[in-house]
């Protein structure tokens, strides 16, 4: 049950997306997120969907594997859809029951919002699927470096992120083990109402947290033993380098911005 969450699970590969510089990928995602919210009609949304599909093809990853990244946010999408259908008013009334109506604008907004959320999730999991956590944090560190001058601990934040990402699979395995151990002791995680189920998670969360703290302590010790002393004077194994791929990404970004701008109403 825990093997399906795609975020943070880098799949090594040699595709265009894998080999592009993480900095351009990060910047592109920021731009893409903006464009997704700029798009406000059927044409722009279709273009964005088409573009996302094209990018997925470019990554040469299995389609179903990427779609799995939507799983943890299904609920959120559903929730916003319901909210919009009932709360947003305007246009033709499709259905009426007392003071309770479903109107054209509501349905429209619901569809658009779910497309937007879906595209954003898909795109950001594409980033983590095609970029190794190390590259990703290095990209972030480099992009945010200017903020270091005004006292933002950029190196520390980047290191924290990369360690968090590195420990996701380890802690997943551990959670799986704890669930099995608790199930073997008679715990039941699959029945009962929502409150009951949430309560049942406590015997998983507590051992997991305790062990995470212990891991953190040991890791800190191991890092110190290997001479870690903060970001000053540190070098990096893989220096990031812009290539023709990043030029291509920049051109595509400009084109996409133009197209969306042109077609939006």
């Amino acid at each position, binding site marked *: 049950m825990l093997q399906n969450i795609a975020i943070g699970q880098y799949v090594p590969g040699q595709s265009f997306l894998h080999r592009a510089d993480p900095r351009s990928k990060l910047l592109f995602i920021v731009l893409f997120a903006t464009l997704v919210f700029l798009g406000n009609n059927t044409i722009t949304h279709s273009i964005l969907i088409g573009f996302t599909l094209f990018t997925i093809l470019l990554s040469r990853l299995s389609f179903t594997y990427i779609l799995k990244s939507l799983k943890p946010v299904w609920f959120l999408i559903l929730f916003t859809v319901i909210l919009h259908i009932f709360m947003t008013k305007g246009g033709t009334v499709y259905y009426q029951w007392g003071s309770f109506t479903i109107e054209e604008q509501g349905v429209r907004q619901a569809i658009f919002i779910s497309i937007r959320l879906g595209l954003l999730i898909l795109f950001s999991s594409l980033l983590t699927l095609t970029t190794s956590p190390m590259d990703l944090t290095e990209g972030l560190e480099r992009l945010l470096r200017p903020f270091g001058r005004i006292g933002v601990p950029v190196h520390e934040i980047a290191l924290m992120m990369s360690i968090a990402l590195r420990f996701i699979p380890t802690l997943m395995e551990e959670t799986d083990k704890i669930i099995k151990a608790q199930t073997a002791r008679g715990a039941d995680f699959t029945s009962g109402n929502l409150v009951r189920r949430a309560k049942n998670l406590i015997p998983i969360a507590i051992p997991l947290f305790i062990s995470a703290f212990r891991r953190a302590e040991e890791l800190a*010790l191991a890092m110190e033993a290997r001479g870690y002393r903060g970001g000053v004077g540190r070098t990096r194994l893989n220096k990031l380098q812009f290539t023709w791929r990043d030029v291509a990404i920049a051109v595509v970004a400009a084109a996409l911005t133009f197209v969306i701008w042109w077609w939006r109403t």
Partner: protein
Amino acid sequence: MKPENLLTFSDVTFSYDGEEGQRVKVLKGVDLSIAKGSFVSVLGHNGSGKSTLAKLMNALLLPEGGKILVSGVDTKDGEMIWEIRRHVGMVFQNPDNQIVGATVEDDVAFGLENMGVDPKEMRNRIDEALLSVGMEKYALAQPYRLSGGQKQRVAIAGIMAMRPSVIILDEATAMLDPQGRQEVMHLARRLNREEGITVVNITHFPEEAIDSDRVIVMENGEVLMEGHPAEVFSQVDRLQQAGLDVPFVVRVRHELIAKGYDLPFELHQEELVEHLCRLLLTR
């Protein structure tokens, strides 16, 4: 010529705060020295102070009293601390909790990055280190997919890349399966023999100490026994009183002697088997 001492402990004491606020003495005046190029095993059960000993060796902890010298440098010398940590590499017990990098190669690079090594030089050293632990095929693998023994070998590669003079295995085999344990011990022996790396193996498996140059037995914060494995393990009763096991071969012989058989002292199974066969034939 007397071999040079790489690590020297003189009258080292250490204590930490116990749960009820009292000071708990972990080391009560330890004197020991470890010769360059040797393979030393430190035996002791839980709470004997052997892990504290390890952390004192690379200045992760500083002694309360006494002095520790690493290649002649006092570990209390704050300016030399990074140099000491480069010289004294440590492999910890839990393989998952000491890997920082998201790939094997990134992890080996971690120590070098801390030292500020030039990326080109880093590349060479990483390849060299991975080759020396036989993990070169896994350079781009993700650590969590490796076996325990492989993870520990990656940890050793991370240390080897920093060109250390001593590697401390702090119960590095305790969480491994028999095969992983064998892999790691085999590698440690080979690095000791072929690359001249001093190895300090802290363990509670007496079996691992058989082939070392010296065995140090810790008990209750003090050095209980010290010497060649044959000397130490021949004192079976004394070791067992301290709650420690002896290698299987030694135990078998000890019990056979108690039953009235005459057998010479041996540390290795093959030789004991030989003696037993001879005994069987001459009876």
